[in-house]
């Protein structure tokens, strides 16, 4: 399933973005809120995020090796993730991106010495990418609910013990590259503002409201997010 979202659907206002930067509502200095407003407006006009997911109905889950296998590909998702998807009947693989433009604008601003502008672009890009992943996840949840199924949280290579190198396996299923994401040798995504991963699907799977309770990595950059 291929999806696209306008930035205007995903950005939730100045206070929300300032909140990501650490500010309580109404406490961010004027130059910061002004810049958020200007750059958001600039990107709202043309910005588009893309997402794609593929559902695999026939999967083999091995509780000994903590692996998920389908279509001849084995994912070593490790114990934390396996414990969440062990009751799945199928899985979805997904990729999402805020697109190339926002990251390029951030890098260009940084290079030109306008670090604040570069930082604001970067925060907007992160929020758009995560927002697109949230919307994609909702779309998947709605789609599988028609068959009486539920979904787990989303899990990404590189987190909760899942080796980032398995990105290469994950991306091998997205042959037409609708989202335009490429991988570096070290399996990082380009554009940087992208999200990828796996979601379990089934009648007995559960969505954990606070996924981070599952994992003991207190330094994870996703710690505290509710997805």
């Amino acid at each position, binding site marked *: 399933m291929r999806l696209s979202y306008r930035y205007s659907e995903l950005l939730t206002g100045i206070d929300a973005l300032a909140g990501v*930067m*650490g*500010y309580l509502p109404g406490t*961010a*200095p*004027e*130059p*910061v809120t002004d810049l958020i407003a200007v750059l958001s407006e600039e990107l709202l006009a043309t910005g588009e995020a893309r997402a794609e997911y593929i559902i695999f109905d026939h999967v083999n889950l091995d509780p000994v090796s903590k692996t998920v296998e389908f279509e001849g590909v084995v994912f070593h998702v490790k114990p934390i993730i396996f414990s969440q998807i062990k009751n799945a009947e199928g899985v979805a693989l997904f990729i999402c991106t805020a697109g190339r433009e926002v990251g390029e604008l951030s890098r260009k601003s*940084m290079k030109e*010495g*306008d*670090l*604040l502008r*570069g*930082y*604001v672009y*970067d925060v907007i890009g992160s929020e758009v990418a995560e927002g697109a992943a949230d919307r994609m996840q909702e779309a998947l949840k709605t789609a599988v609910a028609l068959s009486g199924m539920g979904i787990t949280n989303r899990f990404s290579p*590189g*987190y909760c013990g899942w*080796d*980032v190198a398995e990105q290469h396996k994950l991306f091998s299923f997205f042959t037409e590259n609708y989202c335009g994401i490429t991988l*570096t*040798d*070290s*399996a*990082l995504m*380009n554009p*940087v503002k992208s999200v990828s991963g796996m979601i379990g699907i089934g009648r007995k799977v559960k969505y954990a409201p606070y996924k981070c309770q599952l994992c003991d*990595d207190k*330094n*994870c*950059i996703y710690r505290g997010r509710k997805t």
Partner: protein
Amino acid sequence: MTEILERISTCVEFGKVDIKSPYPPAMKDQEGAFELTRHALDEGIKPGEILEEALIPAMSRVGQKFSRNEIFVPQMLMAAKAMSSSMIHIKPYYLSGETKRRGTFIIGTVRGDLHDIGKNLVSMMIEGGGWEIIDLGVDVSTEKFIEAAEKHPGAVIGLSALLTTTMENMRKSVEVLRNRFPAMKILVGGAPVTEDFCRKIGADFYSPDPQGAVEYLKTLA
């Protein structure tokens, strides 16, 4: 401290770049760090004095406020921009040798990691602490760190990583650098890095925030 040095210091602390900067509102239409630094030099104040008595203390206050969560990244960046506007006038004195830096700090984000905001923040704060910055950028190979260390004998080196997945590359780089340059001080930082990890990989210092790195460097020079 003379009045003009105090004013420069205040401008840097609150991100007042120049006369056109509308922020902070209380300083609107007043001269900023850029103009005041020029005036200070024209009045005969030594560039080293401007650095030691105005810029370094200002950036130190900014770093301390950040450590206490009183300000956030955008205000640090605004302060750094004001400091950079002041440094436009001071840099020529470094080049001529009239003013000395405290030392050289080589910094880069490790191989496989494309994130640079944290690295840039640390660079700015350390530059504000009077050090020359050699910024190797992102996705920096161990060989590139070695090359820079050979080119700048006596430099301190800092490695940044944002991802748990690239911490392994940080470990490899530190191991090679430690073997090659046993006396070189190595700092590590980034969201997933911890004191414990720093110790295990044989780096000399870890700080969860830029100011910690600045304070550590003060003990070296």
